[in-house]
């Protein structure tokens, strides 16, 4: 599978990274180079093999469904580039 420029532009959009038009071609070559290399995994017989989702066999712990944290909004927003009181501020989303 080889990427074309349109696909690279689509990936960049999905990843929310602005890529200038003139960067698309070099980026396409780089990504194809890496993807071409990882495609060797196709030669491994994985019939009947379970995909690994956890390196240590474990079941996730559960706990009582109760509020155990919080109550410090000023800490939550302390690092916000832009904020109003205890809110994060972003450019207008709804017209």
């Amino acid at each position, binding site marked *: *599978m080889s*990427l074309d420029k349109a*696909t*690279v532009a689509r*990936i*960049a*959009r*999905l*990843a*929310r*990274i*602005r*890529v200038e038009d003139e960067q698309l071609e070099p*980026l396409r070559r*780089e*990504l194809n*180079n*890496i*993807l071409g*290399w*990882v495609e*060797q*995994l*196709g030669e*491994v017989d*994985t019939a009947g*093999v*379970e*995909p*690994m*989702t*956890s*390196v*240590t066999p*474990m079941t*996730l*712990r559960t*706990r009582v469904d109760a509020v155990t944290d919080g109550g*410090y909004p000023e*800490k*939550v*927003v*302390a*690092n*916000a*580039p*832009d904020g109003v009181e205890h809110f*994060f501020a*972003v*450019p*207008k*989303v709804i017209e």
Partner: protein
Amino acid sequence: MAALTDLGIAGALDGLAKGDFSARELTEASLGALERARPLNIAITELPEQALAVADAADARRKAGEAGAMDGVPIVMKDLFCTEGVLTTAASHILDGFHPTYSATVATKLAEAGAITIAKANLDEFAMGSSNETSHYGPVANPWTRTGGDARLVPGGSSGGSAASVAARVVAGATGTDTGGSIRQPAAFTGIVGMKPTYGRCSRWGIVAFASSLDQAGPMTRSVRDAAIMLGAMAGFDPKDSTSVDRPVPDFAAAMSGDVRGLRVGVPTEYRVEGMPADIEALWQQGIDWLKTAGAEIVEVSLPHTKYALPVYYIVAPAEASSNLARYDGVRYGLRVPGADLTEMYENTRAAGFGHEVQRRIMIGTYVLSAGYYDAYYLQAQKVRTRIAEDFRKAYEQVDVLLTPTTPSAAFAFGEKGDDPIAMYLNDVLTVPASLAGLPAISLPAGLGAEGTPLGLQLIGRPFDEETVFRAAGVLEEAAGFDHRPDAWWEEA
């Protein structure tokens, strides 16, 4: 008496206990060495005032008979660990000005044990790199140089600042994190010890996430015993990390009995990678001979899927990174670059905030997780990862621990790997398989290579059997008697 900064953790604790010197004196010595080592570009943030205040508190605790396991020992903290009120950058422009309102569990545990953080160490951006060249704050220089050469060498990565701080004798211990080799490879390149424990042994809570199924914190020190002491202070169950494992932390240093008689040591055939330099082959054989002489039994084993470990890693790690790094959007912390609307603001912020290697990995990860390609890339990689873990499981039916070189080359010079990302990725060919299987692995300095720079040997253990790894490493360390140190060129610089 030798300089205070020449002492290891065990030696420093001993001297502090005897009252030979105070934590303040030791910390002042480390801060002085840190300042002199500025040409190495070790620190992103130096913390002299905070460190001295903590040192005074450590001296008071010791006087009161309440000293902790690392009380009064200066350390360097990789700048991937959140530290309350102290700038935390992950060496990325996108975290500009980020002052966490909490500390990582590992940082808290070390502070509770009495360790004194004197600096936040430089690293590859978001721990993505093998040479420290991707840091927004500039590369770290390796304290070592080649015999007769003065080209600056890379310290390895991603824990390059941590490794250089220990090798340059600024501190006796530093924290690292290892996703595919980021503790062990820089340890090998700088002639120190680096231990990646079993996945789940150290809490990941508060460590800036790269690839969550692989990331593990661990110690970087100048001796195996020091690594055992420091890991003891870092490890332990943490309910705040859902993959932290609830089991007791053994006394790792006590496991170093010096006795490996009857220990079965596996030598994996597939680790003899194509083009492996003769000095690394020779050192590996030397390591085999040392363990054999000490009474261990050497067994040739096969890990047939070894060659697929790197491609698996370069699907799984970018996939997880693309998800983990989605949080950097200019809204909650760090850099924001304005745009006409919300989406443009995201795109501008992430284009300006992430470096090239990080952007490349996010895009690879986005692609392999996208509709239509998920099964061919990501799912297949997860299945091959199972195969790789099975290889190890089978090998451990025959042996107790594996011995390999840590890296396929010694430290290289800046720019020497060119622009080919795959050439850089190949640095991790011998460390990535243990990461994918979540196994404990240590690198220790075993000799100097043909270029006069250090080479490391790696021991890989069974899950949660750090004790056997430390035991075998202690014996190898004793046999190797590595006492070389770099010329302190940076002090004259």
